[in-house]
């Protein structure tokens, strides 16, 4: 979903992960410029994954994808290292704005 928006905007999606563990693995392998991450995931959750990724690479750029009502969790994610967030349902313009902000 977010991937579609990004692809249409011209970004290349180099990998996808189903669980937090996979996410950390793939990050180490692929070293992407940007990661979009759900908060709720099976196995290792999003917040933990952000923490691991940021520990591995302090400059990692992670954009959290959250649903309404997940305030506290998003705050935790930011404290764990996430740089910004977008809220479902995704509005392409907002997603792209957030991506711009994160990529700087």
């Amino acid at each position, binding site marked *: 979903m977010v991937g579609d928006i990004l692809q249409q905007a011209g970004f290349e999606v180099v990998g996808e992960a189903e669980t937090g563990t996979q996410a950390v693995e793939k990050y180490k392998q692929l070293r992407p410029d940007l990661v979009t991450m759900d908060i709720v995931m099976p196995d290792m959750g999003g917040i933990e994954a952000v923490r691991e990724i940021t520990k591995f690479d302090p400059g990692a750029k992670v954009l959290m994808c*959250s649903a*309404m009502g*997940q*305030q*506290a969790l*998003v*705050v935790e994610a*930011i404290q764990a290292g996430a740089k*910004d*967030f977008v*809220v479902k349902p995704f509005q392409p313009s*907002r997603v792209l*704005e*957030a991506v711009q*902000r994160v990529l700087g």
Partner: protein
Amino acid sequence: MSIDPTRYAELFRTESREQLIVINRALLALEQGGDAAEPLSIIFRAMHTVKGMSASMGYNALAEFAHEVESALDRVRRGDQQPGPDMMDALFASADALEAGLEAATEGARQSPAMAAALERLLAVAGERAPGGPSGGELPAAGYSEAAAVVQLPAADPLGGPGVIVRVRQSAGTLLPGVRAFLAVEKVRTLGEVGAVWPPIEVLQTSESPQSFAIRVSTLASAREIEAAVRSAGDVEHVEVDMAARTRRERPIALDAAAERAEPAPVGGKVTRHVRMDLARLDTLMNLVGELVITRGRLLQLTADHGKGPLDDAMQQAARLIGDLQSEIMTSRMVPVWQVFDRFPRLVRDASRQLGKDVVFVVEGKDIELDRSLLDEVGEPVVHLLRNAVDHGIEAPAERTAAGKPRAGRLVLSAARDRAAILIRVSDDGRGIDRARVLERAKASGLVDGSAMELDDEDLLRCIAQPGFSTAHAVSDLSGRGVGLDAVQAKARMLGGSVTLKSVEGEGTAFTMRVPATLAIVRALLARSGHERYALPLTHVRETIEFGEHTVQRVRGREVLVLRDEVLPLLYLRDVVRQGGAADAQREIVVIERGEKRSGLVVDELIGQLDVVVKPFDAAREGLALFSGATILADGAPALIMDLGSLFGGV
């Protein structure tokens, strides 16, 4: 210490009126259903701004009223319900009372009964007064002083201490605003030590809608860097960095200074800077440019006749510059129609409720631009046409459903560009005009020949616009339909345009006003008839054609114009102006039109197309109904500007 109200009264009036427009617009959006959060937010902010401004001016009654409305809105917001019709009525009444209150305040009144009444009504629907006077509510508005709307924080100023104060206001519709605020604080943290945050960070993190917050930070970063950091958190509408607070201690902080000095959100993401200007000045500029254009023409003529080399070059350059200047001034006078159309949705809503009709109102072509002076003039006729449509055009809901139509009538106000003219159309899907009845009545009053079998749209308009025609008629479906139409037509003519009508019984009616896009300078054809030259504004010109055997034929002894598939009547300009004499051997034809009607106007010569500076006649003059004004041509000679619409007869 209050500021001197007299100095700022005008500014206050303008600013508060703008806020009222915003409020009305949002109220209408709110009434239509859908997401209530955003419109409520907008109204809340606007009320807050008005409150602050009123307090600064010392208009305490007004400020208190605004405060009460604000609190009531807050309760509605938190109540999380869609406001019902009673609430909407109370809110609209409050907006109107505010408007009345604003006027009264600037004229020196201390109280306004309208406000008291509206407030009672609002409280009846929205619950108790704001607890303990102007305090309470979400933000720590402990009270406000006479002078500025300085919001005093609780006794121990949490933001006290040295440092820079950063006030932030978030965009309307921010998702998870508490988290955004948190993110903003984190970003600012990268620049220095954050001393305190208000509302406290824990409150922010869980808050549904902080809207605005303040941060005190010890940093050596510049204001610009601080602002950039805050904005990098996203969804930030306004940032204010108060560097002066760096050394200040223990002073009450105007927490919502950012909210008070609200700037309108940039349209479409593009930030344009504006300057306020006295309208009269723009008019003066226009006049001066107009004269300059005329003088340019003369200079060009003289240079052509007598000039040489360097003078010629300089003149050419000056001519170009003057042309550019004219363009710029004319553009700066152009204003999108929605500036005037903006108040119509509210108007239509009020009229429909008053008359018991259900109307869906659509505005199209909001961005079409008109010369400012034209726009002011066009408003009145449009209001008239709109009211007329709601009153007489659109049927009552029961009648509509009985006729198999949707319950709600559809009223469309549209603006569109057609070459050098602007078409403003008011159309409804109502009952249409009963032609048979009009014909009957028209015959009875001698407006139409007794033998006429039917009325075309042109004659229909002419008849119902006759003063007294419609009101005298006993039958309700005709009564009132034409009232005031003569005024609308007169206004259109005065502006150099015309009005046309289209109507189909059972389906609806459309009135179209055609006006030139600009008032002061009009594009026109310069035509010669004999020794005289006349300006024919392009507003009513369709095209030009050669006079020849392929275009002109004789039918029953009369000359007619054959234009593709049509046969059009032919008029000689020299006959129209009663010049006498015979036409030149070489002639040209200008095809003119008004509404659906077209004619050919024969002139001796078409000299060219030019921008003509219109000098209107000072007073209506008998026998000059053919002309709408005069102008001075390039060689200094005057020329009359023809009112082409009048050539179609019957006004």
